[in-house]
């Protein structure tokens, strides 16, 4: 899941300062699940904006709406009426959603969250990075633990000399991914794999090759779409 967390309030307030009618848009997908941009957070942010306007002695009208998904144009189409009534939008979706909204409406769209990473929940309220979307998954050789996302130095042949008691040199709160990988390999009886030299990463699929795109020919074929619509 894509995780995000709310931006500092003052930053958001700064963005919207020039405007009088604001739409706060949530997304019912990832950002709801990670409690950053669902209906509840939309409500809280909207209230905060109203409280701030009261303090500023300025009347700001805040509309609230949450879309099923902000990264699909069809859902974002549903904002048409509301977007027409406001001066600016604050989107609580991840960067994908924010951009989709921005691409569809000719008014300023401001991010209300910082999109963080692709992560998994460790427990209620705790999400941890698990994937960087490197485009060339190497979990098959690392015991199912990603050194790209979870080693601070993205070392392909770790651990580095900073690994102490299973923790990373950057913080005792961060697990050493390579310790985890090693433990896992031992558990799986695959220790032998360790000594194979893992070649330097080709970063092209990770974005080194410029903005990435997936095209599923079978789905994206214009012919199929036309036929469906026909």
């Amino acid at each position: 899941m894509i995780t995000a967390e709310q931006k500092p309030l003052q930053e958001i307030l700064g963005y919207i300062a020039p405007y009088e009618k604001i739409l706060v848009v949530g997304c019912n997908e990832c950002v709801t699940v990670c409690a950053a941009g669902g209906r509840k957070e939309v409500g809280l942010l909207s209230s905060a904006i109203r409280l701030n306007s009261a303090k500023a002695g300025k009347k700001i009208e805040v509309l609230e709406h949450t879309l099923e998904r902000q990264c699909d144009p069809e859902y974002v189409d549903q904002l048409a009426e509301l977007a027409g009534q406001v001066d600016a939008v604050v989107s609580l979706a991840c960067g994908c959603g924010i951009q989709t909204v921005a691409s569809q409406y000719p008014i300023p769209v401001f991010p209300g969250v910082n999109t963080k990473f692709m992560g998994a929940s460790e427990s209620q309220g705790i999400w941890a990075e698990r994937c960087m979307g490197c485009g060339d998954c190497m979990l098959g050789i690392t015991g199912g633990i990603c050194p790209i996302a979870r080693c601070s130095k993205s070392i392909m042949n770790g651990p580095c000399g900073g690994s102490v008691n299973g923790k990373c040199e950057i913080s005792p709160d961060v697990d050493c991914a390579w310790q985890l990988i090693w433990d896992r390999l031992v558990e799986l009886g695959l220790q032998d794999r360790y000594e194979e030299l893992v070649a330097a990463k080709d970063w092209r699929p990770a974005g080194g090759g410029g903005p990435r795109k997936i095209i599923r020919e079978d789905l994206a074929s214009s012919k199929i779409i036309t036929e469906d619509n026909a």
Partner: protein
Amino acid sequence: MDNFEPEIVAFCCHYCGYTAADMAGTRRISYPSNVKIIRVPCTGKVDAIHLMKALEKGADGVYIAACLEGDCHFKDGNLRAVAHVEKIKKTLEDLGWEPERVAMMNFSAAMGQQFAQAAEEFTEKIKALGPSPASQATSKAV
């Protein structure tokens, strides 16, 4: 400002906070009429949004009155309430409001006296803080 009468909303749980308030009544222990109570089944039910809404609508102070810690009838609802209060305190701080406008309190059902005293103290504290920006705005609007 001398005559400032703050608006205070207290979310009280059915089992403890509200009962303590009733107990103050039964014993005729007076507390400021500024405090208006909204009953909830458990303070864990009090959404952070409700605290914000109360402030938005014009409350100068809001507090949650829950069971004593460890005595929640729903295990840990009161601890969740603490977290909600803390979150809103942080938001208020970010907004440049006094975070003291939001508070968490705990009472047992029998603590009528303490309920009244806490209501009094909270009211005094909010009086000292003065009207909230929102309530000022609301009264200006009228």
